[in-house]
């Protein structure tokens, strides 16, 4: 008699093995097969894996998950007030047409990924191109087992006025979902996207989502990622971004809540004259664990990148920030600025902050810095001494602290929404 012990990876794969993709075009099935082959050789990260040093996966991988399409839900409470946007709803990694409200806009195609795979030629040129063979297990898992997601394709020269708001919902108990987006901004195009990650009913569910983003020549793309999962929920999230010449990419990652959040943001700046803005705010409470790993890879000369991440950690929450900037030998005249500032509101809150610069070119301007502090008691007292209540004073200080990480959100209604969220968290 033989016994085989299943590893945690096997159990995870078993959950995902329930999925069937045989209806897909061969091209895409082949990509999935390649990813499966990659997975064979990848193991779950351990505490010895440098990239995952401060983030243990035990909580996530010790479970068996269901793959379910989820129930009918009401998304109204997750709309952003006063925001005029196209609404796209994903539930447990599946596209929900009836809850979505997408208006035709000239010069932009919006499809579910599965429709896109059937019909989109341009999608085939970009899909999986920036995510394959990265030797990251969770990226490979999404490559192999992603269900559905959103394709937004801004065509050449199209300035898309109305933003797209994707509401990415997880629901049900111990569900696993793997949504997959592809955003393409062609030459001279401009498009703005918001994606809210929320949890509606249910707990201990896990989403491993990926967005591939292509920013074409002289194009502008803004992606605002709002993570606000209440209840026990887990998210590993990857953006793989590729920038062409003179393009402008901005990402704002706002983590308002989440039991376990790991963000992998990888930006390849592979042409001259690019600008890259990557800002983030993370508000930890209770035993939240919020980890932001970012990589900006400057491969070509004359590019600017600006990175500001601000963390406010309350209770016994844990924050992790690891920001890597590579300046490759060709990338002369790079300006790279990186900063991570944290405020710990209690003695039990923790931050592991590690900004890293790796510079292989000599004519560059780069700086990085990291700070950890408390709110300034003297300043709070000063405000109180004028009649401002302590909670309001704390809120003012936190808002002031977070402010310069909000500056790159160009959508006014969204900025206000985030401001309000911060205010209700820390205000009276």
């Amino acid at each position, binding site marked *: 008699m033989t016994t085989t012990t299943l590893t945690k990876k096997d159990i995870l794969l078993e959950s995902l093995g329930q999925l069937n993709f045989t209806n897909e075009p061969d091209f895409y099935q082949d990509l999935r097969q390649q990813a499966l082959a990659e997975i064979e050789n990848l193991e779950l990260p351990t505490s010895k894996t440098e990239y995952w040093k401060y983030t243990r996966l035990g909580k996530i991988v010790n479970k068996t998950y269901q793959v379910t399409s989820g129930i009918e839900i009401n998304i109204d409470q997750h709309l952003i007030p006063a925001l005029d946007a196209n609404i796209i709803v994903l539930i447990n990694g599946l596209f929900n047409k009836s809850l979505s409200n997408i208006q035709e806009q000239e010069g932009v195609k919006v499809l579910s990924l599965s429709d896109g795979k059937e019909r989109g030629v341009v999608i085939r040129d970009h899909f999986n191109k920036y995510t394959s063979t990265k030797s990251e297990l969770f990226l490979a898992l999404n490559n192999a087992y992603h269900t559905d997601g959103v394709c937004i394709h801004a065509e050449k020269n199209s300035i898309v006025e109305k933003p797209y708001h994707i509401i990415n919902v997880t629901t049900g108990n111990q569900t696993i979902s793997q949504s997959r987006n592809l955003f393409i901004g062609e030459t001279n195009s401009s498009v703005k996207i918001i994606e809210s990650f929320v949890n509606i009913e249910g707990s201990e569910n896990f989403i491993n989502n990926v967005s591939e983003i292509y920013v074409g020549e002289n194009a502008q793309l803004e992606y605002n990622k709002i993570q606000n999962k209440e209840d026990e929920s887990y998210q590993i999230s990857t953006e793989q971004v590729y920038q062409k010449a003179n393009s402008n990419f901005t990402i704002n990652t706002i983590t308002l809540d989440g039991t376990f959040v790991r963000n992998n943001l990888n930006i390849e700046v592979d042409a001259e004259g690019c600008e890259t803005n990557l800002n983030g705010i993370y508000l930890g409470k209770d035993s939240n664990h919020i980890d932001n790993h970012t990589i900006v890879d400057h491969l070509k000369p004359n590019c600017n990148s600006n990175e500001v991440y601000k963390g406010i950690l309350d209770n016994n929450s844990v924050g992790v920030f690891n920001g890597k900037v590579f300046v490759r030998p060709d990338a002369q005249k790079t300006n790279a600025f990186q900063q991570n500032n944290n405020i710990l509101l209690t003695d039990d809150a923790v931050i592991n902050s590690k900004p890293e610069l790796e510079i292989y070119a000599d004519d560059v301007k780069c700086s990085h810095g990291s700070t950890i502090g408390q709110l300034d008691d003297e300043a709070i007292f000063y405000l109180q*001494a004028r009649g*401002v209540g*302590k909670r309001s004073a704390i809120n003012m200080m936190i808002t002031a602290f977070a402010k310069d990480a909000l500056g790159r959100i160009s959508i006014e209604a969204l900025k206000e929404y985030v401001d309000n969220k911060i205010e209700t968290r820390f205000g009276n």
Partner: protein
Amino acid sequence: MLSIKNLHASIDDKEILKGVNLDIKAGEVHAIMGPNGSGKSTLSSVLAGREEYEVTAGSVNYEGKDLLDLNPEDRAREGVFLAFQYPIEIPGVSNVNFLKTAINETRAYKGQDSISAKDFLALVKEKSALVELDAKLASRSVNEGFSGGEKKRNEIFQMAMLSPKLSILDETDSGLDIDALRIVANGVNTLKSDDNATVVITHYQRLLDYIVPDFVHVLYDGKIVKTGGKELAHELEEKGYDWIKEELNTVS
């Protein structure tokens, strides 16, 4: 209005105030003088409600209330104002926005409606003119990048905005040139009325030419050791504090 009785206060177990007694009535101006380190700022901090200082004995009655029982914001809402000796910079917090919150929270505390945007703007305009504080400065981050004189004028601007009953000015004159001093004194005098009182902490007689006190107190080693009229300030200016120390030694 204010009655301080046998006030003792410590910081880090070190006793700084060692039995302060002081009575202040509406309409009065009191000056507190005294050598460096005698406890003047400690007294004003204790009155404003700074938590680092521990009151170990004594009482402070303000308008019939136990002042020490109120948190700092409620003291301010009840009309106590402290112009800080060293006003701090608060980057990212707008001076006027925070004052608006302060005014509205004070109004809510008193059961009044919020101030209208229009009235608030008019108030900012009027009061910043009073202390000749550039309207642009008034709306910047609190004290950020302000010169020493601008910080002090900003304190008086805030005082004017809040129209307190009891104002404590902690060395507001230190480091001011004569023009700035006049502006600050003029601001304080304009706000003076029969219903409010002012405590001026200073080293220099000079300020008291502009803000004329009814009483001058000498705080020395945590106690008020001498009280007189405005002529006491002249005497201190001329002779310094040594004669007071000697007087104390001969008494004890």
